[in-house]
């Protein structure tokens, strides 16, 4: 049981990562590889700020850090016309060094007693399971607040512009909107959320690790896709919510696999491979379905002739 509560909390915290990826991938229609390091950038920035004694301030700092990363990628792919995927890769590999510098040249930076969740638990006298429940509840409340802000935001004028830019940039330009500025804004928001997720995970695990962002893009994709598979692709509001839910479900599946020891000693090791396989299969379903539908049915024709 405890394991599943932990899974719920992790799913919620990683849910913001999924939402960030939903924004770049589904709304802006850009596979944004920046996430592969803006997650760690958020974690590093938050860890340094928190270790210096400002745990709450560390969250807005992470948001700004992520937005900066998104801004660089956005600038590269709009004004400087670098291919979107390459732009993401460039920012990603550059950020690796920056993350190391931010973390004072160590690959792993502990937050010590300044981790938000630790501070929270210290306020009450709780048993181990109560701590987990409290953590999950606080994470859920935080996630819901973020979702409400985002859902409202995507109903504003700027929100509509961001969505339309991914849909039909030519029409956005014809509506006297600066496409480049909108795209950059969208990438800033997406990466800010990813970095916030990284910061929260750092607070949750008590340290920031240089390798924490490995595989975040595929994780986010998996969450978005699982969400869509279950709740359908219907509009933005539902998409944002189902990304978080997809993340939770994914974490629960993983916990289940590990707990049941489905793959023996390799259960925990195989996580990333499983994630990749799930994403690959789900992404290829439309092509497979189309192929099956277009198959020439010779039998029926023979009967008719």
């Amino acid at each position: 049981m405890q394991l599943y509560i932990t899974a719920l909390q992790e799913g919620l915290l990683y849910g913001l990562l999924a939402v960030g990826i939903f924004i770049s991938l589904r709304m802006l229609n850009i596979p944004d590889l920046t996430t592969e390091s803006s997650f760690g950038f958020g974690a590093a920035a938050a860890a340094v700020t928190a270790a210096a004694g400002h745990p709450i301030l560390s969250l807005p700092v992470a948001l700004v850090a992520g937005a900066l990363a998104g801004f660089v990628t956005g600038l590269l792919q709009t004004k400087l016309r670098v291919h979107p995927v390459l732009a993401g890769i460039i920012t990603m590999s550059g950020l690796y060094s920056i993350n190391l510098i931010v973390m004072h040249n160590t690959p792993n930076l502990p937050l010590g007693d300044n981790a938000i969740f630790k501070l929270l638990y210290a306020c009450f006298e709780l048993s181990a399971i109560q701590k987990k429940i409290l953590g999950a509840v606080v994470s859920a409340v935080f996630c819901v607040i973020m979702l409400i802000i985002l859902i409202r935001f995507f109903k504003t004028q700027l929100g509509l512009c961001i969505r339309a830019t991914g849909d039909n940039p030519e029409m956005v330009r014809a509506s006297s909107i600066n496409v480049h500025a909108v795209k950059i804004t969208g990438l800033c928001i997406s990466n800010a959320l990813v970095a916030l997720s990284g910061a929260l995970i750092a607070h949750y695990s008590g340290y920031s690790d240089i390798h924490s962002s490995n595989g975040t893009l595929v994780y986010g994709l998996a969450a978005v896709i699982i969400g869509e598979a279950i709740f359908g692709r219907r509009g933005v509001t539902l998409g944002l919510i189902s990304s978080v839910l997809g993340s939770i479900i994914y974490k629960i599946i993983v916990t289940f696999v590990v707990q049941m020891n489905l793959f023996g000693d390799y259960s925990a090791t195989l996580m990333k491979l499983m994630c990749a396989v799930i994403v690959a299969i789900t992404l290829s379903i439309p092509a497979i379905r189309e192929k099956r539908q277009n198959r020439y049915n010779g039998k029926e024709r023979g009967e008719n002739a």
Partner: protein
Amino acid sequence: MLNISKLSKTFSPNSQFERHVLNGLDLELKDGEFVTIIGSNGAGKSTLFNAICGSILPDSGAITLNGRDITLMPEHKRAKFIGRVFQDPMKGTAPSMTIEENLALAYSRSRKGILSTAITRKDREFFKASLAEYGMGLEDRLTTKLSLLSGGQRQVVTLLMCTIVTPELLLLDEHTAALDPAAAEKIMEITNSIVSKNHLSALMITHNIKSALSTGDRTIMLDAGKIIIDLSGEERAKMTVDQLLHLYSEKKKLELDEDSILFS
């Protein structure tokens, strides 16, 4: 109103593919005038529109709109006062967004801050009333995604988006060419009513010479990047398709003669 003088554009200059698409074109549009443009492929019709909209910049010449020089103004800035409907119904709208969201995008841009709610109840009422005028049944489908609409319905939405905030100039780039005849006729009807109701100044490219002569109040023919025929008033009212084609071939012959004198 719109004033275009000595507009020139050459594609791939100084190469074997060099092509003078616009050749010192002059055009003056009076306030509220509806001009139809005809011309064979490559005559420079679309390039003229692109230059007015800013999707391409001309090599020389000037374009002024209501006293403002827009020759080199960025595309998204001049889009504030120029509305454009494309031939391709896919081009003018965002397919995965709903009708009301598309309309809101066009409607609110000039009147609201970027962080205010895009669609209020009042806006919704307004969209409903505006759509109801065209009798396409779209007023009850405000929350339908554009991708589910037919080409004709999409063009209606695009037309409304372009004119919901009255533009200073409306450009119609063969906007009925991709539709079936019935839908095309309906869209032309709607176009006429929108233009006359809002007293819009408009330019319309068409390949249909008959509708070019019957729509609007002036017809120009482009050839090799220049206006070779400019008809209005009584002369235009009497003109038939055959006469116009005849006039065209005579002009062409004359031009060839001039050229042969020039090169002899």
